[in-house]
């Protein structure tokens, strides 16, 4: 291929990319640069803003609430990730073969993913309600509890119960990613393992999961980034309580930027959060073996 042909081919590719690039610039890069600019400003809605240097960053990093919110988000991510991944992988293994029955099961498991977090949060708030919720009713009917449990009343219990709701809602998506990964594994490898006398557990841990590693890490990147951005479920089900112990970092950004009108500090926290998310995602991609590709 001559240099001219290569340049022509690249121009062609660039033209095809233009629509998505335009959207990326308008809806991501432009707002991102604005947020970056605002993070160094005492930003006023009306009138001129003043240059603050790194004061907003110092303010953000010096706030105990910033670190508490970050910690809450981290804990939630640690709880919710295995709650999504373990059942998702198991279900994917069980449902990887395409038959009428497995297709129905896949649809049933995927349905919660199609509803919004807002709706799911309200539905599960009602399920968890200790006075008229169905969970306490069922548990008391089978004598598992003697008095109604306030599921969202204590910090740790609330974190776990919200994570269960999130797992119910999102594991269908992770399951589908794993099924597509599993279906791309050659059947010959399994046949060879079978001839060698490998058990099903050995096959799962020594063949399926290692081959599935890039898929697992891809799903992990999506899931962990999503968990770090958690907002709706906590906003609706606990509103950050009791005493801010379930307040996530995005709730904190929302509070200081849009409730306290401190857009400068809100932007600074957003930039810090973006750096953190990028670092985590980069590490995950490296661990998943994507960087060389």
């Amino acid at each position, binding site marked *: 291929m001559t240099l001219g042909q290569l340049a*022509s081919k690249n*121009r*062609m590719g660039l*033209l*095809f990319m*233009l629509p998505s690039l335009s959207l990326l610039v308008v809806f991501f890069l432009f707002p991102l640069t604005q947020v970056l600019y605002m993070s160094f400003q005492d930003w*006023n*809605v*009306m*009138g001129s803003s003043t240059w603050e240097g790194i004061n907003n960053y110092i303010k953000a990093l010096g706030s105990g609430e910033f670190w508490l919110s970050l910690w809450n988000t981290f804990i939630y991510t640690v709880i919710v990730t295995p709650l999504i991944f373990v059942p998702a992988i198991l279900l994917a293994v069980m449902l990887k073969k395409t038959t009428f029955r497995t297709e129905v099961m896949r649809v049933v498991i995927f349905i919660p993913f199609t509803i919004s977090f807002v709706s799911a949060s*309200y539905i599960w*708030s*009602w399920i968890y*309600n*200790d*006075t*008229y919720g169905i969970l306490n009713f069922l548990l*008391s009917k089978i004598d598992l509890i*003697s*008095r*109604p449990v*306030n599921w*969202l*009343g204590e910090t740790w219990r609330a974190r776990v119960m919200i994570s269960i709701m999130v797992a119910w809602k999102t594991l269908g998506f992770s399951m589908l990613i794993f099924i597509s990964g599993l279906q791309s594994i050659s059947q010959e490898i399994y046949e060879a393992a079978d001839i060698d006398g490998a058990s099903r557990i050995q096959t799962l841990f020594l063949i399926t999961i290692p081959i599935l590693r890039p898929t697992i890490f891809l799903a992990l990147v999506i899931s962990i980034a999503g968990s770090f951005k958690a907002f709706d479920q906590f906003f*609706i089900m*606990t*509103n*950050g*309580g*009791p*005493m*801010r112990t379930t307040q996530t970092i995005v709730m904190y950004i929302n*509070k200081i930027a*849009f*409730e*306290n*009108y401190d*857009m400068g500090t809100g932007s600074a926290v957003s930039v810090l959060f973006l750096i953190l998310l990028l670092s985590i995602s980069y590490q995950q991609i490296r661990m998943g073996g994507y960087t060389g590709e």
Partner: protein
Amino acid sequence: MKKVLIIWLLILVIAALTFAAGEQEGKGTNKMVALRVWDRDSVMGDVVDQFNKKMQSEGKNIKAQFELIPYGQQVPKFMAAMAAGRAPDIYSLDLVQYPYFISIGAFKDITEEFEALPFKDELPQGILRLGKQNNKVYALPYEIDLSVLNWSKNMFRAAGLDPEKPPLTWDDLIKDSVSLTKDKNGDGNPDQWGFAEVGNNAGSYMFWFMPFIWGNNGRMFDDNGKVVFDSRESKEALQLWYDLIYKYKAAPVSSAQWSSGDRYNAFIAGKLGLFLSGNFYIKTIMKDAPDLDFGVTLIPHGKGKGATFGGGNLIGITSQSKHPAEAWEFIKFAFSKDVLVNNYAPKLMLIPRRDLYENKYYAKYPQMKKYQEILGHAITPYTYKYNQIYDPVLYYLQGSLLGKIKIDSAIKDLAVELKKVTK
């Protein structure tokens, strides 16, 4: 390659021509005035349609466009629009947000227009105060929300209480709440509760808990905006709520985390006798629980008088509006008898003009008569930093009701936080 390039160029040219044509239409005719109207309630959409018909019939080239703004997006969208120089002409916004936005010059002074209104004295003065600054008027009360107590007459009858006698004082509230709390199946756990607290939302504490403090002669801010929250009156009100859970066992502890929807569901399901409510629930209660016989009363008081939080929306013309005269024409239309009575009253929404409460829609419901009485008691705290007080209010009040902070400390520390954010 060339074909793709040509296609893209064509798309760009068509888009540019379409945009230019649109611009030309606006400039060329130089007649049609487009007003943008924002509100969180869809009824405003009907008002806009009626206004447009009227303008058309009168041959005026004014056309209003309505945009529904979800409650949670009211402030972010407005801030973003103002920053971009694209604020609406007219905004019906949560009234507690007005002091701040007026202070930064986001709304136009409409004092002269207001003074000329024949019904200006019919607007609730306690709520109008939020639209005023330095003796000038910037916004008018439009959609009214009042905090009240609903009581279930069905449950009162079943508990042997007089269904026509709601609790008026704190003593009544304790007595009735205890009588209404029942363990029907004998498993040692109540199946229905007398009272429920307001849960996980700071706005709810302001809307329903503050009237308890006002009804005990306490306040959050004095007339000069100074924080006067650290008082015996505030502590007594919080102690009452605490005792209803732990001492009298007449409210579930979890209600300190319930949303308003949880309380509503419990009330219509017959599991809650006394429901801290508002006019916005009246129509839905009738629809969701047609057999529920319920009344409306002021929030019970301590050593003061019964009080209610005056919430809702004020309507104003933004300072970025390029058509203030036309915008005022719209506002006058929105306040007309026909519009208020025929659009808001059938939905049992509270209208801002007290002279219009004697209408055929309200007449069918005794509850609405009560709202007319209650409207005169409405109080709304005035602060430029209303949003900033939300976080400490929730933290300390909910923390104390969950037994994590002592009552005295909660009130004292909350007062300190309020002073910090409002200084």
